[in-house]
């Protein structure tokens, strides 16, 4: 699998195919390389969606595995009618599995693991650790106040008015500082990544 940069300066670079449709066709024909590429392309988005909906990293991880297994099985069996829409297909599968999980009284059905799914998830996890290491460096460039505002916003889920009362500033000021802090993080990331922009190569 190609080496992937966690973030790039201002944009993200993907090494997944622009159109996943041909991968689906190749999977149906038994191409194991295509399976790995498809799973690597889908895993981050599926997990992001499940994490946003469940806000539970463990559960999101488990359901991501289930989703990828179900998508892979469907692709192998030729059950994906529109290969080009495989992302939407995966999103639908993830939603269904989440709904099933919420309806179930005693948790989810555990599907047997597939080694390619495991590999895709481990790759996603590795990349996430890389991104978080970069973010920690980017956050070091922020003032303590800005870090506090981001903490209160993203971790404590406080609204600007609540942040304002806690920090003794106006709600508008809190909102502005939050926006500025998020922008600053992005700029810091861009700065961190810029020197490496020219030496990107596949592994």
């Amino acid at each position, binding site marked *: 699998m190609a080496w992937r940069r966690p973030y790039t300066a201002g*944009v993200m670079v993907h*090494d997944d195919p*622009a159109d996943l449709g041909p991968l689906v066709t190749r999977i149906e024909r038994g191409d194991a390389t295509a399976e790995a590429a498809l799973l690597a392309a889908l895993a981050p988005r599926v997990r992001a969606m499940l994490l*946003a909906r469940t*806000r539970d990293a463990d559960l999101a991880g488990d359901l991501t595995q289930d989703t990828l297994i179900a998508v892979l099985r469907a692709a192998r069996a030729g059950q994906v009618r529109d290969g080009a829409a495989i992302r939407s297909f995966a999103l639908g599968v993830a939603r269904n599995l989440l709904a099933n999980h919420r309806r179930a009284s005693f948790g989810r059905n555990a599907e047997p693991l597939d080694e390619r799914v495991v590999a895709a998830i481990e790759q996603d996890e590795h990349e996430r650790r890389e991104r978080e290491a970069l973010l920690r460096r980017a956050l070091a460039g922020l003032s303590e106040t800005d870090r506090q505002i*981001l903490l209160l916003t993203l971790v404590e889920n406080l609204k600007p008015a609540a942040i304002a009362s806690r920090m003794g500033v106006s709600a508008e000021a809190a909102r502005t500082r939050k926006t500025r802090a998020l922008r600053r993080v992005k700029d810091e990331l861009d700065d961190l990544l810029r020197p490496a922009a020219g030496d990107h190569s596949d592994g």
Partner: protein
Amino acid sequence: MTCYVRPRATTQMDETRMTTPCSQTSLAEAYVGGELDDDAQARFEEHYFECDACFEAVQRLQDLQQVLAAERATSLPAFALPEGRASGPARPASAPPADTRPASVKPVRRLPVWAMAAAASLVAVAAVWSARTLLRPAEAPAIATQGGAGRAGSIPGGLESPPPPPVVRPDPWLALAVVTPPVYAPLPTRSATAATARAFEAAMTEYTAANYARAALSLTDVAVRAPDDARVQFFLGVSRLLAGDTGGATAPLQRAVALKVLPYSDEAHFYLAKAALAAHDRSRAEAELQRAVAAGAGPEGEAARLLVALETLPR
């Protein structure tokens, strides 16, 4: 739409493709914060599954959440150890930093048979939990009896809580703010994932041992994984309060109220009042104490006694 959407026609691997700004990227924050309604949430998901710019925004905000939560967790013990326990860091300096990130994806999720059997046995012997009775706060010391913190009560057949920290405070406000830890008894839940449940129980082991700063540290991590668990939010707030982090106690206690899961939503008012007292915030303390009185929250009659005592403090 101005965003970059993957072209359907090409089949080439495109390593240098650039995303362009997307008008919907601004929705990422509300999405990650869970503030979009169901329809908007679904529409945005369908969008960012195809839009690189918006997916990157979602991913970055989620990464930030994890990093900030972890940093917060690791920074707590430095300032939040309760009196009598502040002689050293919560963790030996030589020890590797705790992995406070929410548990990552675990590719191998099956428990071995012996572990499943053990877990089943644990559930089988766990006491049936009656929420209201088992969340019974221990008998509190008399108001403003400095250093007179009484021994916490115990639950028949349940856990016995440790004595509250013997805090001596000359400040009359802080005397009212003395907190007696509510008793914790384990509650087996079906909804929690195994790892989260284990992390919660580990945190509560520290809590019952009166290691409140460590409990707060661990519960902060658990709360990131399970933000809608009222029990986690409640005990996180109480642990922070007991560890001296009164500012940090408010948000999880308010969250416990907002989640409207009894008895935590009621009981949280009493401890929010304690946080307000510690902050010398009379109006907030009065409001929370009145809610606590109405809900019958806190040790028997203490909310009402605190309201009376509050009146005696100079305005």
